[in-house]
């Protein structure tokens, strides 16, 4: 759908097109129907049949560029090339690569996470000797890959950063532990287990770390309420933040 308007054409020419074609978007699952708000009464906005679909999974094409966001091949291509060279089953292990805002993310299949991390650390041309921890993210709408574990790696030798992201379904929340490769992940993985319920297989002592040992549930998941209480202010009752009207 190329525009006839010369200004818009110029904008599209300057690579300001949406990242995805219309056809690709139409295949995505529905994220939301109608307008925001108005959940209890009928929607009188006239937008009741509005369909908002989930954005398709982005995957960056080559060349990846570098942190500066250049169009030519750069630091990120070097990392990908070296990893591809050092890892025999690169194509199988890496689902997709995302380069966004000057940061690079490898989406790794969970069964390959430990091998990828070990290669990242040991290969002299990669040498990500430091791990800045694991952080969990819960995407309840992503069926079959609800729980994500995001590992931030840092190479002091080459002064680079890269991110590994792996996903596991809520029904089988198992991800291999990275403690044999990066002992610093001991507490990080305990924290992610505590807050998201992701079980890191091979962790030496996967117990809760922030919440009490007998706590039920994993508080950072999206289906876990904030647990606020309403407060009274000058006679009016203010609901807790998770029950207030939301604009998102």
């Amino acid at each position, binding site marked *: 759908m190329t525009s006839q308007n010369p200004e818009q054409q110029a904008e599209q020419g300057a690579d300001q097109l949406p990242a995805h074609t219309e056809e690709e978007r139409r295949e995505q699952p529905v994220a939301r129907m109608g307008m925001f708000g108005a959940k209890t009464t009928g929607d009188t906005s006239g937008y009741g049949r509005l369909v908002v679909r989930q954005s398709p999974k982005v995957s960056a094409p080559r060349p990846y560029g570098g942190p500066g966001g250049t169009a030519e091949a750069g630091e990120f291509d070097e990392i990908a090339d070296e990893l591809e060279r050092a890892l025999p089953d690169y194509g199988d292990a890496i689902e997709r690569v995302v380069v966004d805002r000057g940061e690079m993310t490898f989406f790794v299949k969970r069964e390959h996470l430990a091998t990828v991390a070990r290669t990242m650390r040991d290969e002299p041309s990669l040498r990500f000797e430091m791990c800045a921890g694991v952080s969990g993210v819960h995407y309840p709408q992503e069926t079959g890959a609800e729980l994500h574990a995001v590992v931030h790696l840092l190479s002091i030798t080459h002064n680079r950063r890269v991110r590994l992201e792996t996903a596991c379904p809520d029904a089988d929340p198992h991800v291999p532990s990275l403690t044999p490769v990066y002992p610093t992940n001991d507490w990080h993985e305990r924290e992610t287990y505590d807050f998201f319920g992701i079980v890191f297989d091979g962790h030496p002592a996967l117990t809760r770390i922030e919440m009490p040992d007998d706590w039920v549930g994993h508080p*950072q998941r999206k289906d876990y309420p904030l647990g606020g209480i309403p407060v009274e202010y000058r006679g009016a009752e203010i609901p807790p933040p998770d029950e207030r009207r939301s604009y998102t």
Partner: protein
Amino acid sequence: MSSTKYTEYDAYAADAAAEGKVFDVAGEDWDQVVAGAEDAGDERLVVNMGPQHPSTHGVLRLILTLDGETVNECRVGIGYLHTGIEKNMEYRTWTQGTTFCTRMDYLAPVFNEAAYCLGVEKLLGVTEQVPERAQIIRVMMMELNRISSHLVAIATFGLELGATTVMLNGFIEREYTLDLFEEITGLRMNMAYVRPGGVAQDLPSGALSKVRDYLDRMPKRIQALRKLMDHNTVYLARTKNVAYLDLTGCMSLGITGPVLRATGLPWDLRKSQPYCGYETYDFEVPTQDTCDVYGRYLVRVAEMEESLKIVEQCVDRLQTVKGPVMIEDKKIGWPAQLAIGADGMGNSPRHIAHIMGTSMEALIHHFKLVTEGFRVPAGQVYTPVESPRGELGAHLVSDGGTRPYRVHFREPSFVNLQAAPAMSEGGMVADVIAAVASIDPVMGGVDR
């Protein structure tokens, strides 16, 4: 007692759960404890140190297995100060998030705010549009904060080793730093001063001369602190060759900050991956190669001296660089220029007159931006800054809404505290205190 079987979990059944004899030390019963321990004929003693213990830097719990005076095993129990800051931030707008994260590491609030705001700006893609004056003020505030934080680290360290003089001297100097914060932001701690797009308000008139007074005073005071500590025989005996952790240990345990720099590696994000324009300032990264508590102390003192240099350069620049301290983009920048009134800081009277009296559009704009907030394009970023304790990273995930989808902080206190067993096992029980204090954990940051 060891054979007692319990069928259901009872957290208070300490007697039943423990393997040996349990002493509940409540004070003034040491005779009883000592006599009891002698009777047991067992040298092995499990001591629960904390969470309410004056020498454990807040609510840190250490479970020590002792053989006489030697520590055989050290376990760290945390979570006593968990406040759910990361969860709470998911329910507030991106701007309100600053108010939450500033309370994590309460000794270094500016760094928490800066890491978070740099992340929000990177997500928005407006890093380049943040005004230069705002960046200079951020750097100045961060370096002042580094000094105040290191002063507490050294002061509490002295107190934990039993030297009240060190504590009092450190806290006096910190007080002057906090006075500057109060002058500039209106608050001494938890200022929420750094905001996405800039800082909350410009420096009040007279603030720079106060910073100059501070710069005149501090070098002498740091010198006095050095005179008190650097060659103090008692201090050296307690700190030299204590809590050894070399570069290999630091790498594998992910340790950053003064502990890493005391192993000889000059890794400082201000130099290696600069942000807020740190590449334009002239300063050194101090290192030591002793890998011990004394080395970490020397690194901290030298860092304070370097911070003073940076603050001086900031003051010089702030006198010439004028202009706004909040991003020009009206869809992101906080709509009101804040001002100090009779009842504290609030919207400036001029702004109120404008939105209430003359412009309905301005009122709508103000209302929308304050209640709903701005939308942040979907994606994720990780923004690290060099906090006084090491790499403080903010992992922010946005789903395109007006609130963060997920906020996670890689807190240096949390990570560095993992090194406590490596530093203290095999040493004397008294050195556990020195080891933990040299890590300088802040429990607000550890537990978040």
